[in-house]
Structures are given as structure tokens and as C-alpha cells.
């Protein structure tokens, strides 16, 4: 049976790499790559949505994906 899990996704084109999401993530699943954009390690992400709530540009969304 397929299991669905909630994961965060960044619309990287609009990311300003401010790092707000990094500070919020309780499981340290986000890093800013080369000062350009945020990248989420979806193996670690628990889909709590804290980053999405904090992102000043509102470009992080939480989606359900098949685990």
C-alpha cells in the first residue's frame, strides 16, 4: 500500500536565500546552497510546515508525496 507523507518544497526561482526557513526547521533539513537558494533534504523533512509559515516570500509549500 502506498504511504503518503507531507514534505516541503521550495519555489527556488524566487528564493532570496534569507535563511529564515533554516532557522525555523526543527529537524535541520534545510540549507542555503552557495548563498543562492534554500534546499530541503526531503529524507529528513517531516512536513511540519514551520518553514512555509515563516518564509517571507511565501514560496515554500507543503505537499503530500508518496513515501
Amino acid at each position, binding site marked *: 500500500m502506498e504511504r503518503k507523507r507531507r514534505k516541503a518544497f521550495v519555489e527556488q526561482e*524566487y528564493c*532570496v*536565500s*534569507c*535563511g*529564515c526557513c*533554516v*532557522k*525555523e526547521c*526543527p529537524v535541520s533539513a534545510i540549507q*542555503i546552497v*552557495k*548563498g*543562492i537558494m534554500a534546499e530541503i533534504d526531503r529524507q529528513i523533512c*517531516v512536513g*511540519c510546515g*514551520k518553514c512555509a*509559515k*515563516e*518564509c*517571507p*516570500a*511565501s*514560496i515554500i509549500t507543503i505537499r503530500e508525496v508518496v513515501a
Partner: protein
Amino acid sequence: MKNRKKKHWYDYMWIVSLSYLLLGFFNILFAWLGLLCFFIPLINSAVKGNKAYCNRYCGRGQLFGLLGGTFGLSRRKDIPGWMKSKWFRYGFLIFFLTMFAQMLVNTWLVFAGAESLREAVTLLWTFKLPWHWAYHTRTLTPWVGQFAFGFYSVMLTSTVLGFVTMILYRPRSWCVYCPMGTMTQLICKAKAHE
């Protein structure tokens, strides 16, 4: 899930930012210290190719995070699409740099003796606020004071803009169109393509 991340010394940089703004009310020459917020992020991104300043040390961002987040002064609404577009971000950067250059020209004119020192802070590039009480050292060469008034105007204007967007949208909405953030990201992009 509560965020129990350990606090570091740099998580208190908002105190530095707040002190900077307050000191400008007492002695405008403290405005010169603002150059640190200008050069440190640029040098850091140019040398290390990251945005550690924005990500960790920016006191202004922390101050907005504190006021808008912890103190709940933000409506926490999504910022409009145009505000996060590249057109607006780069356009605002160009506008900001143009105004900065104009401030440098004004300083030069005072230095050259073509104009006299204006003891005023210009808010939002338009409104001249009398600020003479914060200028005590009249024996000092006038251009030093002119630069301080000009630089403090830049810092106060950006704080006001950031404060308004903090209330209207999310706590750190300023970070989306912050000219320093845009500039350091461009430097990082250039470094990454080297």
C-alpha cells in the same frame, strides 16, 4: 513540534541594530558605524560565496522577526507577487544605489565647500526631518557630519519600509527586497558560476 535550537551570540544582533537606531537620536556620528552593515555582507559574500550575514548575523532581520513574530505585530499575510519578482527586487536595488550615490554626491559637495551642512535626516528620500539636536561636534569637518546624516537617512528609511511591510505581510518581508540581500545573492550567483 517546538523549535528547541540552541541560541548563539549572533541571535542577539537585533540589540545592536536597535542600539544603532537609538544612538542616531543622540549623536548622528554613530551613523558611521552603519558602514559595517554595508561592507561586512559584501566582503563575506565576495570572499566566502555565501549569505552568512543574512542567514545569521543581520540584526535588522532579527529585529523584524522579533517585533513581527514574537511580539505579534505582523498580520502574517503573503506578500504580493510583484514584490518578490526579480523586476521589483533588482529595480529597488538600482533605485536604492542611485539614492545612495546621491547621498555620496551631497557629501562631496559639502566636502568641496559648494554646499553647507544640512542638519536634517531625509526620510523616504522626501521628508526632511530636523535633526540638529544630534549633532554636537561642530568643530569637526562638515562633510563627516553630512555623510552621517545621509547614511542615517538611508538606514532609517529602510527600517521604516521594513517595518511597514513587516506589519502588512510577514515579519521579515524586508528580506525579500532588501538591497543588501539582493546584492549579496547576485555576488553569490556570480561566484558559483566562476
